[in-house]
């Protein structure tokens, strides 16, 4: 009888973790397709439920922070933008206490979050966060020099900065080519952060 109970419990645990993994896979897949604020909110809600169930897993926390940053670009309300970015900060801070977290991906997202704050109010936040954006991307690259998201975002940030100063960023094309190449042979672990490729492709094809 004990053996029966043991098997049944094992099956149930496996089943529930399988359901969680499926939920995360679905959310990650939907995140790649999402475009509107409404879509991102629905995915974020799902991720939040997942996170409540498995608070010690880094990926649900990471993806909520990512969805928050994406929402900050999409929601029209300044108040909501700040709420999302504040929430992203909370989740990014949580990630520092979770083992197995990919530090390179977290620093990349930290930089991306600060970039959103600059976009929100360039005059105030530009001088305030410029250095931190660069520092976070560079720290991400120290942990993983082949992180295509960090390379891409740093290149774009440097390029935007150069444009703002009426200069050119000579290394832009080389860095974007490097990111494209790295995206092509990026980590294929299930649910691992892989965002950015579609965005880069669409920007390159739009040229």
């Amino acid at each position, binding site marked *: 009888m004990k*053996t*029966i109970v043991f*098997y*049944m419990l094992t*099956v149930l645990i496996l089943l529930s973790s399988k*359901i*969680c993994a499926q*939920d995360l896979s679905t959310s990650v897949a939907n995140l790649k397709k999402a475009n509107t604020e*409404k879509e991102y*909110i*629905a995915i*974020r*809600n*799902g991720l*939040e*439920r*997942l996170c*409540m*169930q498995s608070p010690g897993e880094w990926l649900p926390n990471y993806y909520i922070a990512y969805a928050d940053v994406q929402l900050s670009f999409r929601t029209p309300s*300044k108040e*909501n933008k*700040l*709420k*999302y970015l*504040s*929430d992203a900060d909370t989740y990014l*801070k949580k990630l520092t206490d979770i083992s197995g977290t990919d530090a390179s991906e977290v620093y990349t997202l930290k930089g991306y979050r600060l970039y959103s704050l600059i976009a*929100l*109010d360039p*005059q*105030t*936040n*530009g*001088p*305030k966060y*410029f*250095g*931190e954006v*660069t*520092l976070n991307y*560079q720290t991400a690259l120290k942990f993983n020099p082949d992180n295509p998201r960090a390379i891409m975002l740093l290149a774009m940030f440097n390029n935007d*900065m*150069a444009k*703002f*100063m*009426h*200069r050119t960023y000579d290394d832009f094309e080389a860095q974007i080519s490097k990111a494209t190449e790295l995206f092509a042979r990026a980590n294929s672990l299930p649910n691992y952060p892989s965002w950015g490729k579609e965005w880069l492709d669409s920007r390159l094809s739009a040229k």
Partner: protein
Amino acid sequence: MMKRFLIFASFVFIATLTTFAQQRIIEGRVLDEHSKPMENANIFIKGTTEGTGSAADGSFKLTTARNRDVVICVMMLGYSEYTVTVKDTDKVLLVIKMKPDNVSLDDVVVVAGNFKLKGNSQWGGMSAVDIATTAGSSGDLYRSLQTLPGTQVVGENGRLYVRGGESAESQTYIDEMHVLSPYTTTGNNEPVRGRYSPFMFEGVNFSTGGYSSEYAQGLSSVLPLSTKDVSPISKIGINPSIVGLGGGGTQAFSKGSVSLSLNYEDLKPYESLFPDKMDWIKPYKLFSGGSQIRFNPNDNTVFKTYVGYDRTSFAYHTNPLLENSLRDLGLNEDNLYLNSTFRKDYQSGYKLFAGGAFSFKKQNIDDALVQGDSFDDKEWELHLKSKVTKRNTDFLKMNVGAETLVRHYQMFYDDSLLQKHAINHFISALFAVATLNITPNLNAELSSRAEYTSINNGWSCTPRVALTYNLNGIYFSGIAGRYNQLPENKYLVRNTGLSSQQCTHYITGVYYEKKDRIYRAEAYYKKYDALVLNNADSYTSDGYGYSNGIDLFFNDRSLFKNLEYMLAYSYNLSRRKYLDLNELSTPQFCTKHNATFSLKYTIPSLKTIWGVTDRFASGRPYHDPGKGGLMNAETKPFNSLDLSLTYLASKRVIVYASATNLLGRKNVFNYAYSKYQGEGGDYQSAPVTSSSDHFFYIGVFITLSGKVAYDVSNF
């Protein structure tokens, strides 16, 4: 074999049951604190991933196969988590009313009298960067604040004068700790500057009245400044300018940072280029240095220590017109400020703050009043403060604390006779502030301060009540509060029995913000009691007075892209029996009408920010000894058109230039009269004007480290 079969059969049985179980529907509506539908709330069964989102009308429908009691959880950013147990019934219709979370509740600000100038703030419409780019501010925090309504132009000294109050009635705090001497010392009729760079601060909160009882010893206004948090970036930069050279940097560590800044100003080269009206023997020199250590051992704990020192020296020949003899006034001053604070947020919700600050100022003036005399004064203050804050419920947040200010002052005046005075005294206080979220639209703040002043063995209790009502985004505020302040040490040293001066504020205001436009209007009445009165060189507390007026403010960032402009107007009527004014009269520093128009325009293609400020003030009252009555004459109105230009020369080089009073108006602030009657029985007079009609500034901020761009801050 049998066992395996049983396991398989059980599994199939459970799965089949689950599949064919009767589906259960849990429906309802999610509403916000105003009972309006809330869209996109996250509704789910706790402990599962089964959930849904609310629609635009707040409705939701959650289908589940769970037929036992379930706990429904609702989450929404900015709101407290809501949970409800749903019993095992066929169909449920829930009405869920969400409540703002602690962070949102704490965001409620009593609007009247308060200008929050923190970056992104929606209350003041002005950010810390704006301070430096406001034309006429010349990068000075206090001059920038003087563009806001409620402040008055006192051009010959540059200090803050708020709503008919003396400059000594305005207090500055850094990280909640008092600053005894926030202004630099300058020569006669030369405007002072703040000792601290605006770029040191993350938050600037300027309250022109009705502030919390937590703040001590300020009758008119308080300026709490918050220094920046730990810098994650190491940086170094220099700043050569037309008046001197500055530089410094920050070294970042994993959990902290250390910053250092040094500055040297010598006006001799500037004077040779743009001579002023002063007859300098030794032009103004200032050496200043500051350092800050910031340490965050974890996310909930912050240690900060700031130390700043500056030394000022200058000497000049005084104006011989109104005096019998020529004086060579020479001044040397040393000023030190040390501030150390600790903050910790506990998981239980308690927030603890403790801090200590030491201010020290020593001044020596030769030929201070007559030829050959010498005046020395030394002043220090130790401020110790601790407080605990906790949101007890959604309805109530409490802040209670205690503080002590220990003060020492001594002065020597040596002419023919030696005058020597010294005092030591302390002020101790307990304060409590209760913030009440009465309804989602109505908030109240009740505060009180019990204070003991050792010098006159006086006890006082100063209550304050503030209400804010939100009517569809239009905020109405009303405040009544009482404030106490000991007379300045220079008066206490002559009469230690002087009472604390008192001022009662009554303020009502309205605030509205929409689409990057801010509108605010306030009316106030201030009643002064126990002011210092000079009766034939004998100081008493028999003075009194009042000040009332209206402040209007409009800020617009939406008219054209990259353009921001601001209009501020203040009307003030102030009369007091105070110091040498032995009849109820308008003090010399007060003006009835003050208006400011300030504009900023960014031209990205030229990488420049242009700033234009025009300040107007009606005439200042002054006393003509040749006429009857007190304060019996008025100067001509004041006007100054100022310009500033910020140019991003490259990623690491910023050029900042400013010029004041472009129209070259001869602004007169007062008239000084000779003590002696002339042959015709009249008194010889000289207009009190600024030492120079214009001030020009050109500075270059160069960042030397690799990771930083267009950053003028070394902290």
